[in-house]
């Protein structure tokens, strides 16, 4: 709980630095999504050939 609250605070600060002010409810939803996609991202990074360029 404390950890999630810290993460929401971090996301709020990141959003604020870009001039955006979401609610905690918005950020809690985003947090769930980010956890899922970042986990999938880590798997892709492991398989991505080092020579693959954008």
């Amino acid at each position, binding site marked *: 709980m404390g950890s999630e609250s810290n993460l929401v605070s971090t*996301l709020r600060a*990141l*959003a604020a630095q*870009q*001039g*955006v*002010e*979401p609610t905690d409810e*918005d*950020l809690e*939803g*985003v947090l769930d*999504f*980010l956890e899922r*996609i*970042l986990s*999938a*991202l880590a*798997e*892709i*990074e492991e*398989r*991505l*050939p080092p020579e*693959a*360029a*954008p």
Partner: protein
Amino acid sequence: MSLDPFNAFLHRVEADGHWRVGVKDVIDVAGMPTTAASKVLHRVPDRDAECVARLRAAGASIIGKLNTHEFAFGALTNSPHFGPAVNPWDTARTTGGSSGGSGAAVAAGLVDLALGTDTAGSIRIPAALCGVTGHRPTVGLVPVDGVVPVAWTLDAVGPLARTGAECRRALEIMAGRELGAEPPRRVGLVTRLFDGAHPAVAAACEEAAREVWPDAEPVELPLHEEISTITQLVMLPEAAAVHLPWLRTCLADYGPDVRARALAGLLLPATAHVTGLRARSWARSLWERELGDFDLLVAPAMPIVAPRLDAVPPDYRLLIMPYNSPAALLGLPVTIVPCGIVERLPVALALTGRSGEDGVTLAAAEDFQRETDWHRFEPGSGELYTNPVSSDERG
């Protein structure tokens, strides 16, 4: 106030010509508001988007603006501000989206041609669920000037109509050139997308595909498990960049689902986007190596029939992503053709071609529609046809 029984139109004028065209409300039409079915945007452009101008110059009569998922950033067409477009085949069901007004208007015969946009499935999904023909062009084929972007490197503007031939006519006008009509020489059936579809949908799609392409070979798409995530990594940050000025000033005016996706894009690390771009290059090279000899890949356009508006599966987006992400990520052309009726609702095939070979998928669609009658079925005609696999038998 709804302007038609399907809430397909957001703004409408009387037709003054014979080729009645509706335009998704993310595409500018001179003198008509562009709202993107949002509370955030309301501009009245003084000039047509280039694709609209080209159609008008060819004799089209633009009769109105069509409903969309808010900012074309979702797959349902259920804007909280304008209400859902409903499916002419069953008004309790979704049209899909985001070009849901376009799908409904063509299916109901309110227009001869509708323009849609497709970032990650938004022409293909409503074409399939509404039982009409649709074409997502190769990225870059049709100009996107005057179109509200979702994600610049993925967006495409394309037609929805009754037939592949009508889609070809519209696309050639919008692209400003003929597209060729070479039929495909080597056809692949994307087995995992058949396996992942509802059994009755898969059976109808396979029967139709086998009838027209009996020599099609089974194929696997590279990075099947990863490609939806890679598409999100590319799309979400681009979308957040599009929306950033509005996120700063009117965040609360967005519907909850679009707000959540835009914020997710805003808060993804920059390296995630770069990894997405690198993975797209990787996917493109694998695709070329493993599928480069195939002119056409055939798969169910959607794994399910149109869900009820009050019972959209909670995993709807995850369910449909594998069907829509590969062509989105790689910018490939796809033509959607109706290919059967399941539970009195249309199902469709997706015909995917190589980049720049829109003429091949359209030629395949035209061949398919010479051999079959599914594109002639209209809302209500599903009652005339009972699929041999009933829902009871499927369990």
